[in-house]
């Protein structure tokens, strides 16, 4: 088996409610997977199950072949909780040193990691004086301790400024390059779109999508948007011909299904006398997410 993390029909009940309903998901070493879903869709519950913080009601989870919560599994896993905070009296260095000792890697990597996440100067200041972004970066530093096999990041970009977000994704790429399987729960769709290999979408405890972005959009059959800029006064004719709608004086917008896209493009490209420019917008993760996370029960 090549998967480092395998979740097999995981079931979790919260009272009468099914928090997770037979969710199966696998991650190979070095793979970056985005876990999407509304609040309460079960993303955090899934992470807690993998961490062994809460018990499974059915199914099985294996991390590098070990049971969740076992010492081997905990050694192999790194975790970044959502909006984590630490004791305000400790310094960043104290806190990271504690985690390094608990992980059994010693305190030698601590200064380097603080440097890596941009906290070298604040290392000896109390966490009480840190901003939210700095606390998040301290949390990220402990993820990098001891080359984990699996990293679970719960909303890692919340509270980060745009530059820090870029750095965060650079760090995720670095983790993946060293062979860590990274599972990122996020709401920031445009970010994960470009920076992950696969998209998994949870809806009300069920996994409704688990594939690459390209396959997902093919399967969803979401239309591509074409915007055609017409030459002098031809917009009305193009709109009438193609069944599109005029959006301003000189442009026509129309939606076409994935399989009809090339035909349409060829047609407009040949109308060089009437068409000045064609702008094409393929379905974005936002549209896909809306499609998979909101459509009626399958």
């Amino acid at each position, binding site marked *: 088996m090549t998967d480092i993390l395998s979740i097999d029909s995981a079931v979790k009940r919260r009272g009468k409610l099914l928090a997770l309903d037979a969710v199966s998901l696998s991650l190979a070493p070095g793979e970056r997977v985005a876990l999407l879903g509304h609040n309460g869709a079960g993303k955090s519950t899934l992470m*807690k199950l993998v961490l062994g913080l*809460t018990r499974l009601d059915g199914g099985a989870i294996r991390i590098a072949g070990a049971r969740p919560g076992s010492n081997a599994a905990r050694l192999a896993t790194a*975790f970044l909780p959502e909006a*984590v905070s*630490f004791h305000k*009296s400790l310094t960043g260095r104290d*806190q990271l040193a*504690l985690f390094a000792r*608990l992980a059994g890697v010693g305190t030698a990597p601590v200064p380097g990691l603080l440097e890596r996440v941009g906290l070298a100067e604040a290392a000896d200041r109390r966490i009480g004086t840190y901003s939210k972004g700095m606390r998040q970066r301290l949390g990220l530093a402990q993820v990098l301790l001891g080359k984990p096999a699996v990293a679970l990041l719960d909303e890692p970009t919340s509270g980060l400024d745009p530059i820090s977000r870029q750095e965060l994704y650079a760090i995720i790429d670095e983790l993946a390059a060293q062979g860590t399987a990274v599972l990122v729960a996020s709401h920031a769709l445009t970010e994960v779109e470009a920076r992950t290999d696969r998209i998994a979408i949870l809806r009300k405890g069920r996994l409704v999508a688990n594939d690459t972005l390209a396959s997902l959009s093919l399967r969803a059959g979401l239309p591509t948007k074409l915007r055609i800029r017409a030459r002098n006064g031809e917009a009305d004719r193009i709109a009438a011909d193609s069944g599109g709608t005029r959006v301003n004086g000189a442009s026509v917008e129309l939606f076409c299904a994935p399989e009809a896209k090339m035909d349409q493009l060829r047609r407009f490209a040949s109308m060089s006398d009437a068409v000045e420019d064609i702008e094409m917008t393929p379905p974005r993760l936002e549209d896909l997410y809306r499609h998979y996370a909101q459509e009626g029960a399958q």
Partner: protein
Amino acid sequence: MIGRILAVARCELLIVRRNRWLFLATLIMLLFALALTFAGSAPTGTLGVDRLTVAVASMTTLSVYLAPLLALMMSFDSIAGEADRGSLALLLSYPAGRGEILGGKYLAHLAALSFAMIVGFGTAGAIAGVTGGAGADSVLALLRLIGTSILLGAVFLAFGYMLSALAGSPAAAAGSSAALWLVFVVLYDLGLLGAVVVDAGGYFTQKIFPWVLAANPADAFRLWNVAASPDLALATGMAGVSGSLPAWAAPASLGFWLVAGFALARMAFRRLEP
């Protein structure tokens, strides 16, 4: 395993030092112990004991209130606070068992409490001994007071962890700790007092009351110190009760609560889902 316990203990020690808890606890112990030593120095002549004995008697009464209070104030936030900040889930994702985390915190808080007790009672005792005389017996009584105060604090530290794990938030943990302190240190004795008054020296007062009294760790602490020193019993006026119990009763009660308290805290912590 021992390395992980020490790593947690080291961090907790940093916290009690940085947030001035260690300093405040030591200052409180020192001020109260000194005040009682000098305020309580008047009746030495009439009782025929040295000043240190009287000081230890006063400080025993003080410790019944202060040791549980300081212990609960140190421990109530330790689990509920981490759960509230979200760092508990992170801590538990590391290869540190819940027992190890609890053990590390316990070690650090016990060390801080011991420091406060030794400095506070030690200083007050030394001053009382130098100014008003001390014998081998009264020095032994002072050492016993320090040792049993630490033990009493240890019992209430464990109670504090249990409440901290059971309560959903730091505020609830603080409230239930205050309630626990009130019940064990104040209300329990008042209730027993009422029962004894109603009973008017009957079977309950003779046979059952001493055992019920010893079952409360705070009272067991008092009984232990009193029973071991006849002079102290005289000075605190508890000679009657301590005479009707075997010598092992009070130590056994404290020992039992120490083990039971930690086991209960461990159980409550295990049930907690961050």
